[in-house]
């Protein structure tokens, strides 16, 4: 009965075909390592964010006079409201952890290279949407960091020549961050994840057109592929189990680890916190922004451009990397550059976390010097990757003929 029903449906819309060709029998390289789990992990976290967000939104009030109290109402009075909120707040953190690993995976194994350029670019678009969503979400609890973070970041737009100041007023809906800002950020925070979901769909569409890259980085003939199900379904579900253990350990046992204490103080426009820090996942970019401070009145705009450019430059990777070999596994110089780049972004994150005027080594080394050097190295990665591959400086090791 159910079989004939399925046939009846398939004649009208070929669902079974789609599932077969795109899921169960979808051919996947057999040599993917665990770094390839992070795509499905990102999707898992996105779904958790949308579900918890939806239920939070049923109790949350996007009003400057009520928002902070409504979050406490969720924490105290709503059944399992504390769980929803801690899942959502820590979910944002784990979303970024997962996505950063996913992106670095792509950089290391050359997944951005032909024929996967569009897939890569869509990923960057998703990342921008994520940053926008997380930034506006962080404003919603309307604590001190929400308010001042929003003020500092939106203020950056004022650096744009001619229209900057008017643009900022337009974004704020007034002459300062306030109730209208909160209200529109809520609307956008509700909307963007669904746009993001759409972008993920197109990302997967592009993936299924060109298929997965793999650690060896060569094109895989059909005989070296395995069906997605059961091999990768079980591997992905196992990965989800591991992620949930780590993520929920924070939710249940250190739910405030990634949150700033200051955000438990209600927003107060009259009192600037001693030290305004963005969420940890923005810190490297924030450090790049602040390290451009030596261009006089042009510094602010240059800083904003450098910050935007530090991500936008990922778009160029398919053109910058000229090596005949995709995977860095067989590219000794690129690999070294990659690890320097990776550690450099961690240093940038640390610089971003510290006050701009901090020093290390008893005042001998100003933080700003470290920040500038690290920014230089950050961009240097892209230039050097181009140089060593465009001029044949890197001699790749021998690449296996098959996986």
């Amino acid at each position, binding site marked *: 009965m159910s079989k004939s029903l399925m046939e009846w449906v398939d004649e009208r819309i070929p669902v079974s075909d789609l599932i077969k060709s795109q899921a169960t029998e979808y051919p996947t390289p*057999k040599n993917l390592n665990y*770094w390839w789990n992070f795509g499905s992990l990102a999707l898992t976290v996105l779904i958790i964010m949308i579900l918890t967000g939806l239920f939070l939104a049923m109790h949350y009030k996007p009003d400057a006079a009520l928002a902070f109290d409504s979050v*406490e109402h969720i*924490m*105290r009075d709503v059944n399992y409201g*504390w*769980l929803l909120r*801690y899942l959502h707040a820590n979910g944002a953190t784990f979303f970024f952890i997962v996505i950063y690993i996913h992106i670095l995976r792509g950089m*290391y194994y050359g997944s951005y290279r032909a024929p996967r350029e569009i897939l890569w670019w869509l990923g960057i678009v998703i990342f921008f949407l994520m940053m926008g969503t997380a930034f506006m979400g962080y404003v919603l609890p309307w604590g001190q960091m929400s308010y001042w973070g929003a003020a500092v970041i939106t203020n950056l737009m004022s650096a744009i020549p001619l229209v900057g100041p008017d643009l900022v007023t337009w974004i704020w809906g007034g002459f300062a961050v306030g109730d209208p800002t909160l209200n529109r950020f809520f609307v956008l925070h509700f909307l963007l994840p669904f746009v993001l979901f759409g972008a993920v769909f197109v990302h997967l569409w592009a993936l299924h057109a060109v298929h997965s890259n793999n650690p060896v980085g060569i094109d895989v003939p059909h005989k070296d592929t*395995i069906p997605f199900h*059961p*091999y990768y379904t*079980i*591997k992905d*579900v*196992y990965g989800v*189990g*591991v992620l*949930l*253990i780590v993520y*929920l*350990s924070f*939710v*249940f*046992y250190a*739910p*405030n680890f990634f949150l700033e*204490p*200051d955000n*438990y*103080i209600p927003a107060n426009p009259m009192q600037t916190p*001693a*030290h305004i820090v963005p969420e940890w996942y923005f810190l490297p970019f924030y450090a790049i922004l602040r390290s451009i401070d030596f261009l006089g009145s042009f510094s602010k705009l240059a800083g904003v451009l450098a910050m935007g450019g530090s991500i936008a430059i990922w778009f160029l990777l398919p053109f910058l990397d000229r090596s005949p070999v995709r995977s860095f596994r067989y590219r000794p110089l690129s690999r070294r550059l990659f*690890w320097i780049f*990776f*550690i450099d972004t*961690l240093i940038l*994150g*640390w610089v971003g*976390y*510290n006050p701009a005027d*901090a020093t*290390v080594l008893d005042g001998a080394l100003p*933080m700003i010097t470290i920040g500038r050097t690290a920014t230089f190295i950050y961009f240097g990665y892209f230039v050097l990757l181009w140089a060593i591959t465009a001029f044949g400086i890197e001699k790749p090791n021998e690449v296996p003929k098959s996986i």
Partner: protein
Amino acid sequence: MDFRKIATIAAMLLLLAPQVGMASSGGAPLPKADWTFKGVFGRFDPAALKRGAQVANEVCLGCHAIKYIKYDHLRSIGLTEAEVKAFAEAQGKNKKDRMLSAMSDADAKESFGVVPPDLSLMTKARKGYENYTYGILTGYLTEAETEMIDNATSDDALSDEEIKQIAAKLHLDAHNPDYVREVVRRIGAGDNFNRYFPGNFFAMPQPLTADAVEYADGTKTTLEQHSNDVVTFLAWAAEPSLEARKSLGIKVILYLILLTVMLFAVKRRVWAKLH
């Protein structure tokens, strides 16, 4: 080098690094009390909660509100109906009321220059969390210290020796004698010194001393005991769901570990067919 090795080392650096950079944020290093509600199996001590509620009600509410808590909520930490009623009535309230301050904002502003912050979330709203609030309550000058400063200032100028001694006692930077002098001058002028408050001076006069409150259960009434109790109560007020969270957490995490181990076994089994 190996991808995994570097990733782990770097991730560890990332976690450790922030602390290195933040070490210098003013105020003495906080006292580290042993809270019963920390850790995976941590729970609030019901007796401490009850005593803490009394301290909060009788002392802190004089100036602060704990607005997210209603008197009625206190029943969930073990107060009887009659006790709740007595607590509320002592403040001229009834059990459905929130724990608001007896002092109006305007009066507070006039007396202190600021409205004392609501305490409902205090233990979550400062770096150092519970230890910070505990530090604030116990960080004022002791009698011996007041005496030491009085003696030091009885003749005209502070000697280097006296500055060193004061700096050591009050956790000040001995390399900055001008700051120590300024602190001593302000203490003399009657400002509220606290060794754990970043900046050392603020508007709250010492709220709690030994024997401030009389405990029905006969517990000793030292400053440390009072502070410990009221901070325990404030930690509950900041996170009433803490115990529910921890006990649900155990079940969820154990379940997930079991599930994940089984998934791993299945994964191995499925993939074994390939080789």
